[in-house]
């Protein structure tokens, strides 16, 4: 048994404890030590994640590097981890983004708590001393829990961490704002944090009922276990037959939680608040990492455990996802707040991911998985640059900006790249995934595919409108002083841009990793790709000459 996976999860967890335990940040030097330690831990995690990816053999078993430790025998729970292609891809995404988020939020935890209550944290108070530790420890805690969620091969273990990650996330949202809100930003932020927590908690609790229900149903048929692999094996071999009604109910229980987390229309309204009020780094953590657990879980748990119900509900879900695509984009167009705009854009993108998952074609699901990764990277770039901009001007309102490209061309350029990635420009990573999702959807549900394609026009609208309004035109009052990106900020954006381009031109390593897992998922739901009406002859592509 290899311990690589548990090490990958344990390092950030231990790092969180270590960071929290470091001496209080009374001086700038100590604060820097704290940050450096946290960053080092996250880089170490990245190294371990890379090791996981390197030892993952695309052609091998579905779950590799598996390990299992007895945890709560009474409930049939063992702490089992295993990496499949989909999980590994997302582990990599997480491990890449966290150090960048830390670097981007290097100064987010210092200084006043918020614009309005600037004086509310007396210098030298316990809180002002511990804020840095708290911020970075919470990020590491989120990372650890997300990693476990991506690697868990036990339904219960997944559930526990799926749910537990809400708490550090909640404190990140509620405790650390971007200093750009209005006079009642404290109240807004705590509202956002509560909303985030309550929505997700409700989702999680409904899922809890379903998790229990699943166990009861399975135990009735002699499969008293939470092990995902054991359950899916039993289901596909017919040893475990879940009666259709029960299956539908359980599916909905699981799906509800994931749809809240993803978030899918109409359960999305927590996301704009949460992303709008938190720091840019936290917003990235939410939309690029934490929310991915939702879509990831749809693919792994909803489809794997409830194949028939998934098929039953697929059309309904696809329609909701479609509504989400168009709705999210339209509402994004109508936003006045930069970060909320990005949030609604994400809602639109999550629609695509869900579409891909439930199209149940290999293109759709591979596309959806790639989409998760690519959306993570591209939105991170977009959002973090937006955050840099907001921190300079101290406002989130689009109307407060104009002509930034004149004073900060690099910032504007990277912001444009982020926007172009968001609108899935070919040559950039999101295009690959979006097109796969569209093709996958179209090949089974042509009408939905066509309407979803309309989303690419709307995406261009919101992305370019935002760029036009903030970056171009004459320099607005208040923007003159905006400085261009600093070295630290460039170091955050550069890897993201590079990855966006690299995965746009050469996504093969990723697709190779993901494809076998997707095929396995498809075989779990007994779905095969629709065959072309008039397949071309075996000669595929060029090479005749």
């Amino acid at each position, binding site marked *: 048994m290899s311990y690589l996976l548990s090490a990958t999860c344990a390092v950030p967890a231990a790092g969180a404890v270590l960071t929290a335990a470091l001496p209080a940040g009374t001086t700038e030097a100590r604060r820097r030590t704290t940050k450096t330690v946290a960053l080092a831990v996250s880089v170490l995690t990245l190294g371990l994640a890379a090791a996981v990816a390197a030892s993952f053999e695309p052609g091998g078993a579905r779950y590799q590097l598996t390990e299992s430790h*007895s*945890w*709560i*025998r*009474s*409930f049939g729970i063992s702490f089992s981890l295993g990496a499949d292609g989909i999980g590994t891809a997302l582990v990599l995404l997480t491990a890449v983004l966290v150090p960048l988020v830390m670097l981007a939020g290097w100064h987010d935890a210092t200084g006043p708590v918020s614009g309005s*209550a600037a004086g*509310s*944290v007396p210098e030298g*108070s*316990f*809180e002002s001393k*511990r804020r840095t530790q*708290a911020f970075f420890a919470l990020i590491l805690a989120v990372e650890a829990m997300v990693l476990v969620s991506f690697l868990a091969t036990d339904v219960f273990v997944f*559930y*526990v*961490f799926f*749910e*537990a990650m*809400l*708490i550090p996330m*909640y*404190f990140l949202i*509620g*405790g650390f704002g971007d200093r750009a809100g209005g006079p009642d930003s*404290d109240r807004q*932020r*705590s509202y956002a*944090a*509560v909303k985030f*927590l*309550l929505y997700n*908690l*409700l989702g999680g*609790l*409904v899922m*809890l*009922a379903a998790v*229990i*229900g699943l*166990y*009861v149903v399975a*135990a009735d048929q002699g499969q008293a276990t939470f092990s995902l692999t054991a359950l899916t094996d039993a289901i596909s071999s017919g040893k475990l037959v879940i009666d259709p009604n029960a299956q539908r109910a359980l599916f909905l229980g699981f799906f509800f939680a994931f749809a809240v987390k993803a978030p899918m229309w109409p359960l999305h309204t927590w996301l704009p608040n949460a992303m709008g009020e938190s720091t840019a780094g936290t917003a990235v953590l939410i939309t690029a990492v934490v929310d991915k657990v939702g879509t990831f879980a749809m693919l792994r748990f909803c489809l794997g455990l409830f194949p028939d119900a998934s098929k039953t509900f697929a059309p309904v879900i696809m329609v909701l996802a479609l509504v989400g695509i168009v709705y999210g984009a339209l509402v994004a167009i109508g936003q006045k707040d930069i970060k909320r705009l990005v949030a609604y854009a994400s809602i639109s993108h999550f629609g695509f991911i869900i579409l891909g998952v439930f199209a149940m074609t290999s293109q759709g699901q591979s596309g959806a998985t790639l989409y998760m990764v690519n959306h993570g990277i591209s939105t991170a770039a977009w959002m973090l640059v937006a955050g840099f901009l907001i921190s300079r001007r101290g406002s989130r309102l689009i109307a407060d900006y104009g002509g930034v490209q004149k004073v900060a061309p690099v910032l504007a350029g990277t912001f444009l790249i982020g926007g172009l990635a968001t609108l899935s420009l070919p040559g950039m990573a999101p295009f690959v995934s979006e097109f796969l999702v569209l093709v996958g959807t179209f090949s089974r549900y042509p009408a939905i595919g066509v309407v979803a394609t309309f989303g690419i026009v709307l995406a261009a609208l919101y992305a370019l409108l935002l760029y036009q309004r903030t970056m171009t035109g004459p320099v607005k009052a208040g923007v003159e002083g905006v400085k261009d990106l600093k070295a630290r900020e460039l170091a955050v954006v550069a890897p993201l841009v590079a990855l966006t381009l690299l995965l746009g031109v050469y996504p093969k390593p990723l697709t190779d990793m993901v494809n076998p897992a997707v095929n396995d998922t498809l075989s779990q739901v007994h779905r095969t790709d629709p065959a072309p009406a008039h397949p071309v002859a075996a000669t595929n592509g060029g090479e005749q000459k």
Partner: protein
Amino acid sequence: MIPAHALAAANGSGPSIPAPHIEYGQLSPMLVVFGAALLGVLVEAFLPRRARASAQLGVSLLGLGGAFAAVVVLAAQGHGTTKAGLLAMGAVAIDGPALFLQGVILLTAVLAVLTYAEGRLEPRINGHRVDAFAAQAAAVPGGEQERDATREGLRTTEIYPLTLFAVGGMLLFPAANDLLTMFVALEVLSLPLYLMSALARRRRLISQEAAVKYFLLGAFASAFFLFGTALVYGYAGSLQLGEIADVVSGVSQVTPALAVTTQNDALLLIGLAMLAVGLLFKVGAVPFHSWTPDVYQGAPTPVTGFMAAATKTAAFGALLRLFYVAFPGLRWDWRPVMWGVAILTMAVGAVLAITQQDVKRLLAYSSVAHAGFILTGLIATDRRGVAAVLFYLLAYSFVTLGAFAVVTLVRDSKGEATHLSNWAGLGRRSPLLAAVFALFLLAFAGIPLTSGFTGKFAVFQAAAEGGATPLVIVGVLSSAVAAFFYIRVIVLMFFSDPQPSGPAVAVPSPLTATAIGVGVLVTLGLGLLPQYFLDLASKAALFTR
């Protein structure tokens, strides 16, 4: 049962009265506690005032510790499992549940006694350290006599023997194997609690009011219990739970009297309902909960903590024994009714807590909601259900005690600052304490990786396996509502600005710190690595009869 002819036979054979066989060894936990209580009374009578407090503390800790050691030894000897049996002529059952709950009660009591002895919170009076209890309980609040007593630094050290008596009753309550013993235990545990409620040093008026409400309603409930006892006795002709079960299921020999009384099922059913009323009152189930908020608020906070944790444990023990030993045959009659009670309890407790403004009342309603959750486990009517309830009680006791211990620390010039508005910004003033309280609240809310989650999972799983799926769904929804108010408190503590004249957090002595620390450890321990205790609970989950 002592049949009349046996007595007659004894008469015939002369004046000698056959001595009942008493297993002192197995009863030693209770005997030790009662012995310590009596010793406490003697201490009160004979020791000089100065020495009393520490002597009482020592006696109590020794007594409780000794009793706990006895419980451990008994359990180790197998009295909880293989050697479980009826003692004292069938009046007391020492079996798994009894020993387990006795252990829980004793541990809670130890921690509670530690919080009683806390002397650093109240300001010193004339150089005397004083605790949370009235200087002289008999004195009129605000009167001359009270002023004198206060000036002399008097302390109501009677609280210790009273607690020991209550603990003795609590130990007996879940072990009581006939209705007589149960009734006596009920009274033995209740009467000291009535008095203890009245002993608050500050806010004596509401303390006295709490006592009188608790007393009158408690006596009222006891009357129902007693009448229920009479009716059940009338039906079955016996007070012993096992024999009642035999009569109910029709396996016992039918005497002429039984032939008449068993005709009348109403006797049995009304009796059962009334017994349930008496016990549901103690656990604080809706609609017998109305005393809880008032009493929890009015009683001295250390007493509230003790009461909330230990009374609930003991009462649920008795409820379990009553339903599982005496009335398993009536399952189809009481289960639907208890369904209703459980649903009402969960829903009303959660909904009413939302609008509370006082932290102690909030915790009181929370305890009502938790009674509902525990009832879902009770309804499972199998061994798993019992194990789940046992585990839940263990988890809940420590969280509750810890939470109330934290409440004692948040103070202003008027004593404890229990109004929630005073808690605003606590997380900024003393993050550690706020974090601890947040942990307890999260455990109450059932967030994974805390003991509350494990417990909730256990009872819901048991309920689902017992076929009570709707109950699980109501439980889940109530949990969501409940989460709302726990989170509200967290928001208040962390994300609101502190009031300028807000309360200060007192630095406790190691006594309270120990209580809180143990609470934290158990909360995390049972959340992260609960297996040992789940095993223990499931091993203990068999009633003897």
